[in-house]
């Protein structure tokens, strides 16, 4: 009965209601669209980061992250990996060795980072030319694209590496170029060469030791604190450190957080403006109907019911605006589907390569959030005119012209 009355009331001035609805629809649509876009981008960035370059969690020798040194290794990576597998079912781990050296071809030589990895377990590298490293084949090297062009070598060519091993001796060896690759960041592709883990351990005289055990959890969730806590509990943190990607790249974490809170404030401002529009509409609507409301109350309609009626009218518009806005926002995101950045995104964001394509997803929390905020603002926008209407003295109101 109340709903029906409210529904009829809001369509008594069709034009005004349509304008209010348009504002609500656009507001909700923009919030859902923007938030879904930016959350898709963060989600993709974090997923790439956790599956490729950094992992969800990294285990190092204690103090390695703050001060990386060749000698500071995880001495028993097997034990660490077993502890992780035991404490976080489904987690995948892979080992890396990181050192420095000098790479030379017949043409040129250049200082490089040397990264040893398990090519069958590590998704860090994308082969541009040639074929991927094979863990069973020794004496092969993959060059970051920047290094390859600096040394002027292609797959099949030969590269000599020199460096200092962990025992202080001069490590030197000759490798056949298997591939030219792109790695996790532009910087990495420009400065790093890649060996199989065994070759790198041999080169740097590390034995079984590795510098990083990289852990990937079977989840795309951003909040991994529970997993991390159980894994940390299983590790010997007197000799090891276990850091999350957010601890390893704190600037990236901070940037995402600050962009998120920035967007939140934009949303609040958008809905505040829409809310003021609703307030204006409802004030006008009750003002116009002063006489009518006075008559209703004179005929015995209780004040609470008048209050309810006006609030319901406002909420009805909010709900309608939200539904239309959701349809708009979701529709636009689905219509775009996937963004292609092409050449624009060959850059890094704080040391992480940005993806070149971005599939957009509807963020459920954005839709729910927009719904709650839409109803909340229309509730607030309607409440004041409703209170005013319900407190009208019926005798005077009926005489109001």
């Amino acid at each position: 009965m109340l709903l029906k009355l409210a529904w009829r009331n809001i369509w008594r001035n069709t034009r005004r209601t349509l304008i209010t609805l348009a504002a609500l629809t656009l507001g909700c649509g923009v919030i859902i669209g923007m938030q879904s876009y930016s959350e898709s981008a963060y989600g993709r960035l974090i997923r790439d980061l956790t599956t490729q370059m950094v992992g969800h969690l990294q285990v190092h020798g204690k103090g390695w992250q703050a001060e990386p040194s060749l000698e500071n290794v995880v001495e028993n990576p097997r034990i660490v990996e077993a502890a992780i597998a035991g404490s976080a079912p489904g987690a995948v781990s892979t080992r890396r060795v990181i050192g420095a050296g000098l790479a030379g071809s017949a043409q040129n030589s250049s200082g490089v980072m040397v990264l040893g990895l398990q090519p069958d377990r590590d998704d860090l590298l994308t082969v541009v030319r040639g074929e991927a490293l094979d863990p069973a084949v020794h004496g092969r090297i993959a060059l970051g694209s920047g290094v390859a062009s600096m040394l002027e070598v292609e797959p099949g060519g030969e590269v000599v590496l020199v460096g200092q091993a962990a025992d202080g001796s001069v490590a030197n060896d000759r490798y056949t170029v298997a591939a030219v690759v792109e790695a996790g960041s532009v910087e990495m592709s420009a400065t790093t060469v890649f060996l199989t883990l065994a070759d790198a351990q041999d080169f740097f005289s590390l034995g079984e030791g590795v510098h990083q055990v990289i852990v990937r959890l079977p989840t795309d969730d951003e909040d991994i604190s529970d997993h991390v806590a159980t894994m940390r509990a299983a590790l010997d943190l007197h000799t090891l450190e276990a850091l999350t990607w957010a601890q390893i790249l704190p600037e990236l974490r901070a940037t995402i957080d600050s962009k998120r809170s920035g967007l939140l404030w934009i949303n609040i401002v958008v809905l505040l403006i829409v809310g003021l529009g609703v307030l204006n509409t409802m004030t006008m609507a009750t003002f116009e109907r002063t006489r009518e409301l006075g008559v209703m109350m004179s005929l015995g309609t209780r004040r609470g019911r008048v209050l309810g009626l006006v609030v319901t009218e406002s909420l009805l518009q909010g709900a309608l605006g939200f539904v239309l806005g959701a349809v708009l926002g979701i529709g636009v995101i689905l219509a775009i589907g996937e963004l292609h950045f092409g050449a624009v995104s060959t850059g890094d964001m704080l040391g992480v390569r940005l993806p070149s394509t971005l599939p957009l997803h509807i963020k459920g929390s954005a839709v729910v959030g927009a719904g709650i905020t839409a109803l909340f603002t229309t509730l607030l926008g309607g409440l004041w005119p409703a209170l005013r209407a319900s407190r009208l003295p019926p005798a005077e109101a009926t005489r109001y012209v």
Partner: protein
Amino acid sequence: MTIDRPLLAPITMGLVLSLSLSARAADPPPPKPPACPSDAASPDPMVLLRRVEQTLEGTSSVGTISMSIKTESWSRKLKMKVWAKGEDYALVRILEGGPRETGMMTLKREKQLWNYLPQAGRVMKLPSGMLGDSWMGSDFTNDDLVNGSSLTDDFESKVIGTAKHDGRDAWQVVLTPKPEATVVWGKVEMLVDRATCVPLIDRFFDEEGQLARTMVFAEIKTIGWRQFPGRVTVKPADSVRETVVSYDDMQFDVSIPDDTFSLHRLQQGR
């Protein structure tokens, strides 16, 4: 990992590898060095330092050197043979070291360095960006091998007094680089033995006046007319690292065939 340390003074390597620093116009070899002004309370610093240079270097030298390097995480010993001619040519060959580095050679020709890498079987030229890096993991840098500077040409010097060190009477000499000289130090303080004109201690200060490195000379022995320190210890001021160089066998002013320093020969690993 690369070892970042301030570029070490060229003086060091000139001394250690007997690369001639000051024998620019000294061909044929000086038959008789200037006498050591032992009796002078405050000798002319130029005379003193010229004598020091001539003592430590020659027109050419051949020698066998042991080097032991200690760091926080490892220590190791290398044995090497060194040939040097004038200030532009030197060759070092590792006789004993780790299994992958025995047979390694470093060739200096003028301002450039090449390494022969025995495991790779290849020669690699050192890019200029790596000059500041450690040579063979020691407390000497590649730059020490490449750049030549001279106590007498690149520094203003002053004898400021006398002191005792290790039971020996010594002059205290302060050297400050000339404005146009390409020297990485702000100041060098030396103690020079009065009896033999052999340096006893060199202290190297950076441009902020902080002690950066100390070299201690010991086991003075006689080679021909020379008195020569048989052992040099180098310690960077800010770490527990230490490199000790012992001269097992040194010959000065000997004739060395020119092709010793040929790049072609280096490429063949001989």
